[in-house]
C-alpha cells in the first residue's frame, strides 16, 4: 500500500479499513488480521496498527474480544452511518475542488450529468 505523506499513517489505514467494510469487501462480524500480520502486510509499525484498532474500537466500528482478536461490528446501523460519512466527505471534497475552479452549482451538476452520459455511451460501445 502506498501512503500519502501528509496524513498520519494510522488515519490512512483506518480509512482503508472503513472503506473495505462499507463496500462489503470485509463483511460485518468478520475477524480482522492480527496486529502483527496486518503490520507485516502493510509494512508499517505494529504500534501503528494497534492504534488503528483502538481508534476503530472507540468509533464502535470494531470490537476486540479478549484472546480472540478484533472483529468488525455486526451493527448495520454503525456501518450505514459510516457509509454516509464517507460519502459525504467524498462529495464535499469534490465540490470544494470544483468550486476552486469557479464551477457554480449548476455547472457542477451539468458536468456530472454530462460525465454520466459519456459513461453510458462507453458502456454501449463496449457491448
Amino acid at each position, binding site marked *: 500500500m502506498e501512503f500519502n505523506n501528509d496524513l*498520519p499513517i494510522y488515519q490512512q489505514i483506518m480509512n482503508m479499513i472503513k472503506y473495505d467494510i462499507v463496500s462489503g469487501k470485509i463483511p460485518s462480524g468478520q475477524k480482522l488480521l492480527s496486529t*502483527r500480520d496486518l503490520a*507485516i502486510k502493510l509494512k508499517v*509499525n505494529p504500534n501503528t496498527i494497534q492504534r488503528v484498532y483502538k481508534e476503530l474500537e472507540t468509533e464502535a466500528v470494531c470490537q476486540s474480544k479478549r484472546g480472540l482478536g478484533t472483529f468488525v461490528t455486526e451493527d448495520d446501523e454503525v456501518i450505514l452511518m459510516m457509509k454516509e460519512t464517507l460519502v459525504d466527505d467524498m462529495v464535499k471534497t469534490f465540490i470544494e475542488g470544483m468550486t476552486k475552479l469557479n464551477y457554480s452549482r449548476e455547472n457542477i451538476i451539468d458536468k456530472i450529468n454530462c460525465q454520466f452520459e459519456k459513461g453510458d455511451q462507453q458502456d454501449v460501445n463496449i457491448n
Partner: protein
Amino acid sequence: MSILINCINLNKKYMSKVALEEFTLKFEAGKIYGILGPNGSGKTTLMKIIADLHKQSSGEITVCGNKPSHETRSKVAYMPTENFIYGWMKVKDSIAFYKDMYADFDMEKALDLMNFMELDLNQKVSSLSTGQRARLKISLTISRRAEVVMLDEPLNGLDPISRTKIKECIIEQFDENSVMILSTHLVTEIEQILDEVVFLGKGRIVLQGRAEDLRFERGKSVEDIYREVFAHA
C-alpha cells in the same frame, strides 16, 4: 512504559572533534526509534556508546538500569556497518559462532530467518553477495532475544527486494519488551516502521518526536522534514 536506555547530557569527543554533544533522551521498551542524520552526525557514535564499544567523554548513560559494561553487553544486540563475519566461515558456522557467543541466541529463530532470507547454510561467507551478507548480518543480530536491538544502516546498498525482506523481518521479529534503534539516512524507506524519530545533526538533537505527530503537525512526510532540517548540512 519502561525505559531501557537513559542518556543524560552525553558528550563524545575524538581528540578535538565533537561527535556527540549534550545528547539527552530516554528510549522506551516497545518502540522502534529511527536515528536520522547525514553522514558524520553522530549516529554510529551514539550506538557504540550504548553498545559499550566507546566511552562517553562526559555525561551519564544507563542501559537496562546499569552503566554500560560487559553485563549490559549481554542485553544489547548491535549490528555495526562493517562486515564483521569471518569470510572463511560457512553460513552455518557463523550461526554456531553466534550461538557460542551469546546466551540469548535463539537457534530456531535463526534457522527460520535463514530460510526467510533465502540464505544457503552451506555457502561460504566470503562468496556471499553484498545483499546476502547484509541479510546474514541482520538475521544473526535479531536472532538474539536482546532487550536492546540496534541496527546501524540496515538498508544501505541493498536492492529493493532485500530491503523489503529486511523491513518485513524487522516488523515480524520486533518484540514489545525490547527497544529497537535503527540509524539511516534512507528515510523514505523506513519511516513507516518508526514510532519515534530523532534527527541528529553535528552531534546534537535537532528535532525529535513521534513520527505520526510530526507528520500531522507539519503536513509532511518524515523524509520531507529531514530535507528541510538538513537543507544546509
